[in-house]
């Protein structure tokens, strides 16, 4: 089943296309990484999914229905900028958010107790939010997002600013939710976390989809056919070997840009010398991101009349 389905969605602000002809399928029960540089259209897309903004064109469905109430009661959203009502107690905030999602107080009180215990906040249930530390507030906000048991969670940089212990606790909670069937859309700039956590990744750039697939698919599509080799012969042995386009000597090992099939290259290399290491280098998500989003000379040019 598909949790989110976007078909040809376009949104413009003042004649500027924020999201252009975007189509996307987020499978239910997956953790879907949402990446892209600032201002690329991520937030606009998320807001359209939550029915905060209406698309100019195209259709959006959440769990097979148009993303209107009551479907959006199934969505929990954690924005990047954190904020809670400072003068309310933790219990009051969590009850308020839960009730606005249509949950009963009895259900909520059980869920509040269980979540606070899980994230070691049980003692703070009747403390005002303004007395909590930043990390605690962040955990309370996470609980506020999941308290109404949404089927779809949209988390924008959920771990930023957290110490490693708290970040791990939240990551475990996210994984548990996924195990229980919750779909998680995870928007982040932290490529390492995205690589570790996400089943599928989607990248939006200048309002357009530029990546969509599993990490392996993305790496394969952006592979530059580079092999890292460590041999008895060292760099010299590679000099006149067929299928070698370029060699970067890193000391003990060499990164070889291949012009042909890696298997044939490996066979030729093994025939010539003892091979201690042979690894086809995959580009990291970070590399792919930078490769796509690196500013071009055109981006960096000062508009005419704009300089001082």
């Amino acid at each position, binding site marked *: 089943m598909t949790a989110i389905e976007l078909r040809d969605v376009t949104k413009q602000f003042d004649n500027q296309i924020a999201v252009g002809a975007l189509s996307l399928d987020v499978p239910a029960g997956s953790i879907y990484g949402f990446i892209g540089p600032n201002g690329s259209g991520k937030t606009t897309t998320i807001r359209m999914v939550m029915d905060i903004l209406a698309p100019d064109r195209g259709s959006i469905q959440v769990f097979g229905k148009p993303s209107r109430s009551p479907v959006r009661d199934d969505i929990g959203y954690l*924005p990047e900028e954190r*904020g809670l*009502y400072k003068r309310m107690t933790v219990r009051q905030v969590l009850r308020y958010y839960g009730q*606005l999602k249509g949950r009963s107080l009895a259900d909520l009180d059980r869920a509040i107790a269980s979540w606070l215990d899980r994230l070691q906040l049980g003692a703070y249930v009747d403390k005002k939010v303004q007395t909590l530390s930043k990390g605690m507030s962040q955990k309370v906000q996470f609980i*506020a997002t999941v308290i109404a048991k949404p089927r779809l969670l949209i988390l924008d940089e959920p771990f930023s600013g957290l110490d490693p212990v708290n970040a791990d606790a939240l990551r475990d909670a996210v994984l548990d939710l996924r195990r229980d069937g919750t779909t998680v859309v995870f928007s982040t700039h932290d490529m390492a976390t995205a690589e570790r956590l996400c089943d599928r990744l989607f990248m939006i750039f200048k309002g357009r989809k530029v990546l969509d697939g599993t990490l392996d698919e993305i790496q394969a599509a952006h592979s530059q056919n580079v092999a890292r080799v460590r041999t008895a012969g060292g760099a010299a042995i590679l000099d006149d070997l067929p299928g070698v386009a370029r060699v970067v000597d890193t000391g003990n090992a060499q990164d070889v840009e291949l012009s042909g099939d890696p298997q044939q290259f490996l066979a030729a290399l093994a025939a010539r010398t003892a091979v201690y290491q042979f690894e086809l280098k995959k580009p990291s998500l970070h590399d792919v991101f930078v490769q796509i989003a690196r500013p071009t000379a055109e981006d960096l040019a000062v508009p005419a009349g704009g300089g001082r």
Partner: protein
Amino acid sequence: MSRMLIVARTEFLTLVRTKAFIIGILAMPVIVGLSIVFQIFAATHADTSDHTLAVVDRTGALYDTLAAAADEHNASGVSNGKRTGPRFLLTRVDAAGRSPAELEATLSDRVRRRELFGFVEIPANVLASPAGASDDEQLAYYTETPSYTALSDWIRDAVGAAVTARRLKAANVDPDLVKTLTRPTRVTTLGLVQRNADGTISEAKRTDALQTFVVPFALVYLLFLSVMASAPQLLTAVIEEKLSRISEVLISSITPFQLMVGKLIGVASVSALLALVYLVGGMYVLASTGHLSAIQPALIGWFAVFLLCAVLMFGSVFVAIGSACSDIKDSQSMMQPIMILLVLPLIAAPVVLRAPGSTIAVVASLIPTATPFLMLLRLAMTPPPPLWQACLSVALTLGTAVVFVWAAGRIFRVGLLMQGKPPNLPELLRWIRQ
């Protein structure tokens, strides 16, 4: 419970649970009480000092009368053995053989040295009875503290009384007889006589300053206070929610319009609670002093209607400003015209109070933003305005409130997601039309 009511309840509890609200509710009667006590105290105890006045009596005949009048004044300023007013001590100055300029200079120096508070020169011809008054008859009162008028007023009256008595005597007229014959005629202001159903006629009642002035003004100020205590808080609350992105989370659960109306219901309830506390307190005071009839039950109904209208109108404007701005500083400049709109009716209130049926009062009380205050004022007075005017004003105000709420809803919907520079008026209008 409807989500709008969940928002309303949360908004209400958040405002009411604050210490500021509880202190504010208690502080108001305390401040009013203290200011009354202070005024009474100031009126009776502020000035109990001695003021020495040198008298240059060029008539040579008035000083003793003035000294006796001063003794009488000083004796009247003592209650239960305690002084409640200033004491005027007169000292005679012998002007014989001294030039007026020299004498005035010497006395002025004594005032500067604080030996005297001031001095007065009574011209010799003050006792003459010329056909017309001339400047030569004027007393000259010299002081370093011209703002203190109690002494100059007293000496003017005392010399005036002494001179009049002497002039009457000189004309062979008995001063006591003159006093009796020129006593003022008193006026009693009454309401109208009622013809009852059984044909009898009930007596007209004396008008009551409490009912005529105090109750109407108190109700208008209570309305103003109730609106001011809650509606502007919407602005800061909305800005806070917007900056912390709480609003973005909220409108993923509830539509912006529901959220805004929920907030308006919340603050209207806070205003109603505040007004109720003071109304009940005020009626208790009126009842315990036997003046409960000064407030008509229908007036409470009108008050409730106008309170609702005012909160909806001004509250929705504050919501719209809050959602359009990204920080409190930006909102201040947009707030100013609204605060002027709120205060203007209070400034116009005395005009309406003096002539409630005048064209200006009728027109002003039909302007929707002023109606809640000025029509309420007119309704609290006698005679009340014609019912059609009251109904028309409610219809106009309710209509305006609905338009304001609708327009604020449009601005709120767009503004909540906007960051950065606040919009100008054309942009706001575009948001409304979008």
